């Protein structure tokens, strides 16, 4: 059933208008096989991370020293590492860590950057100039290098990686939220709300935020992919998750000296990162295309 049919049934476009585009969005997302594949892969990865304890064949840190560097077999589907730990169990648990790091760092970036963009875009003036200057300065440093510098100062740990990657992503969110807010700010319904004397806070969170969400959601998906890559990169350099934590980047780093004898301990965690990032990018691209009226057809 199309948008017009839905309107016809209601007899009044007003009530269903907010629902119909969303229906259209789901339809447009489903129409792209790439987005569907990405979404299915992402759901599987998230479910595996949530139920890691139930589905892992072995505890992630359990060592079987007699079973070191064993190739993939019936007992250990993806082989074992230099401590005889099951690579598959560690990858499943590592997904939990990587997704957590990704979500928390993007949440930090979204909270700070989104608020900067919202306030700057809504009020304009001097505050907006200050925020824009901060964003310009942060963008002058490539995000990974900024994160690297922050972790260098705070010290190596997973928490510091989340803070570092989060801060490094602030400017992207500030910029996207600001430009979305600037567009919505000019809409008649915002002027109408102002005219009837609504408070700024109410206008911002009832009208501006919900209508600016589209590009921000796309950025969340794409930033999640970037954050997971950056966090794994920092852990690979020994600046993030510390042993024995099962985290994809640090698994690669610790298995690296044994690559000649047991490449599976390096190959599979890397593939896990790649598949996750690929799935997020596919969903992000699909969302962007579906939300962008110019790309709809």
């Amino acid at each position, binding site marked *: 059933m199309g948008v017009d049919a839905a309107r016809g049934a209601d007899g009044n476009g007003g009530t269903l208008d907010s629902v119909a585009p969303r229906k259209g969005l789901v339809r447009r997302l489903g129409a792209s096989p790439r987005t569907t594949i990405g979404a299915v892969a992402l759901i599987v990865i998230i479910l595996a991370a949530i139920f890691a304890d139930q589905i892992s064949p072995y505890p992630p840190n359990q060592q079987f020293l007699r079973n070191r560097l064993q190739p993939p077999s019936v007992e250990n589907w993806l082989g074992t590492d230099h401590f005889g730990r099951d690579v598959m169990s560690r990858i499943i648990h590592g997904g939990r860590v990587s997704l957590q790091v990704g979500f928390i760092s993007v949440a930090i970036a979204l909270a700070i950057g989104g608020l900067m963009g919202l306030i700057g875009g809504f009020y304009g003036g001097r505050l907006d100039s200050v925020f824009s*200057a*901060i964003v*310009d*300065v*942060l963008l*002058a*440093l*490539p*995000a*990974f*290098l*900024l994160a*690297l*510098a*922050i*972790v*260098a*100062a*705070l*010290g190596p740990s997973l928490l510091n990686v989340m803070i570092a990657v989060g801060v490094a992503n602030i400017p992207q969110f500030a910029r996207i939220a600001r430009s979305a807010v600037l567009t919505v700010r000019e809409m008649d319904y915002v002027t109408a709300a102002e005219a009837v004397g609504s408070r700024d806070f109410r206008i911002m969170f009832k009208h501006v935020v919900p209508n600016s969400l589209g590009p921000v959601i796309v950025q969340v998906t794409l930033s999640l*992919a970037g954050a997971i*890559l950056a966090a*794994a*990169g920092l852990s*690979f*350099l*020994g*600046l993030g998750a510390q042993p024995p934590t099962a985290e994809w*980047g640090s698994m*690669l780093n610790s298995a*690296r000296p044994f*690559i*000649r004898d047991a*490449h599976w301990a*390096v*190959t599979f*965690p*890397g593939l896990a*990162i*790649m*598949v996750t*990032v*690929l799935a997020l*990018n*596919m969903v992000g691209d699909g969302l962007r295309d579906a939300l962008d009226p110019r790309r709809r057809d």
Partner: protein
Amino acid sequence: MIKYIARRILLIVPVMLGVSVIVFGIMHLTPGDPAILMLGEAAPEAELAALRTRLGLDEPAYVQYGLWLGRMLQLDFGRSIRSNRPVTAEISQRIGPTVELALLATLLAVVIGVPLGVISANRPNTAIDHGATVLAFGGLAMPVFWQGLMMILVFSLWLGWLPSSGRHGGWVYYVLPTVTLGTSAIAAITRMTRSTMLETLSQDFIRTARSKGVFDRSIIYRHALSNAMIPVVTVIGLQFGGLLSGAVITETIFSWPGIGRLAVDAIRAKDFPVVQAVVMVFAIMYAVVNLFVDVLYAFLDPRLRTRYS
């Protein structure tokens, strides 16, 4: 044009000042006394106090920043805690290999990415187009550290074709690091070229050229590509940031003696003067490349050229 370039150069100054505040601020978050870090826990208090005075560490933060900025403007980044050599000497010794690697990777990305994007746009929905799309998606999602290790595994350990580390000894040493560093840029440039070419090929002036009977090849290379190059050039500039980040990891994997590896070694050794200096140098390199890209952009886009002439 000169007005435009001058304006762009002037805009860099406040941004770089802002970056210097951030870099200085970040390093001030570091717990611990830099004097103890430099001289060690066992150093006598008198020596520590003398060093603090010499470095201005007992001054308020803004005075310290002023002193640091002043020294930096004279290219004095202090001494490395690890080697006790001037940081400027350490960086000037290692910046060459990084620039070399970054330029080679950019060149590779342009040489492969642009033609692949053009072919892909010219034959949409064919096997070549799908193949290029898969390559581009894969290239963007592949972690650079994993790709580097896989290349070492296949080309050094299994096939024995290429060396896995080092730089001296001929072109073979450049292959793996350059390909590793350039892959995500190839992917980004392919995607951007494809989408801008598709957009340009559907525009009226192309249709006019076609209807006038202009050869396909001439349409693609003379009319469409020159228009599509503008966003592609921007992407090349933006990719350079990713390239510098990638250089940190690539240099670590391939034992490449550049400033990326210097930064990682310095972070591990808590050698903060070196870390500060490398981050500043990276920011300046990024700014210079983007300045260059903006100038090239103006050169490619006649509309921008006339606005500032």
